């Protein structure tokens, strides 16, 4: 233990930083990516199972897709309220952010924090702190594409 501490002291600060940068982040990035891939993949697989169920019930592809979104959003809102989604998110990173469940999670998590500001302008407003920008840009892109189609057919 002593010798390794002595050796560390001898390495100049810059070299040490370089060494840390070289060795530390890469395994972390790799680990994060594996977690994101597996958890994100599993969330989508669950979505496919729910989608297949609704199509089996005779819903059209579009309606089955909508119903699947509703169920996934419900589950994510519930699990966020229970505190389970954040536990998952600690490991899964983007695996829990990118799916539509991450959108629902962002809505509940940001709204929950602002209860002390009231149920109308606290919770009611903070629901949109992440969902708002997401919808603004989603709407903007799709409307522009729609306008392009109106103009150019």
């Amino acid at each position, binding site marked *: 233990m002593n010798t390794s501490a002595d050796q560390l002291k001898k390495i100049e600060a810059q070299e040490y930083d370089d060494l840390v940068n070289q060795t530390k982040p890469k395994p972390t990035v790799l680990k994060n990516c594996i977690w994101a891939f597996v958890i994100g993949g599993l969330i989508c697989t669950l979505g496919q199972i729910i989608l*297949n169920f609704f199509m089996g019930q005779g819903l059209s592809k579009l309606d089955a897709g909508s119903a699947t979104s509703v169920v996934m*959003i419900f589950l994510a809102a519930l699990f966020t309220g229970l*505190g389970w989604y954040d536990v998952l998110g600690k490991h899964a990173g983007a695996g829990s952010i990118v799916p539509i469940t991450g959108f629902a999670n962002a809505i509940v998590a940001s709204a929950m924090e602002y209860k002390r500001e009231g149920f109308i302008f606290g919770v009611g407003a903070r629901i949109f702190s992440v969902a708002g920008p997401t919808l603004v840009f989603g709407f903007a892109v799709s409307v522009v594409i729609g306008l392009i189609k109106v103009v150019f057919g």
Partner: protein
Amino acid sequence: MGMNELLMAFLVGGVLCLIGQLIMDLTKPAITPGHILVGYISVGALLSGLGLYQPLVDLAGAGATIPLSGFGHSLTQGTLKAVEESGLLGAISGGVEATSAGITAAIIFGYVAAVLFNPKG
């Protein structure tokens, strides 16, 4: 068909999430989870307009529709369909019409969950 369908959803959904993780890790701390959501819905809507997202949906089903890029795809497809039916008005109304169930569910379930539960820790 069944198992293959689930496997494709897992693989493609997983890769879309992996890309998001790479973007966040390699740009830390500039790109936040909020940016990821905004980016995915926007890029999904754009790719859909270019005709590039539907093939991914055909290949992977929920693996392409559950990620938020799939929400952007629904916005654009709803808009384009509504433009065909009602022209300019459709460009404004079509996106929300196609995604209304998800948007309303997110707002209502989100509000109820935020009222019923308290933050942990």
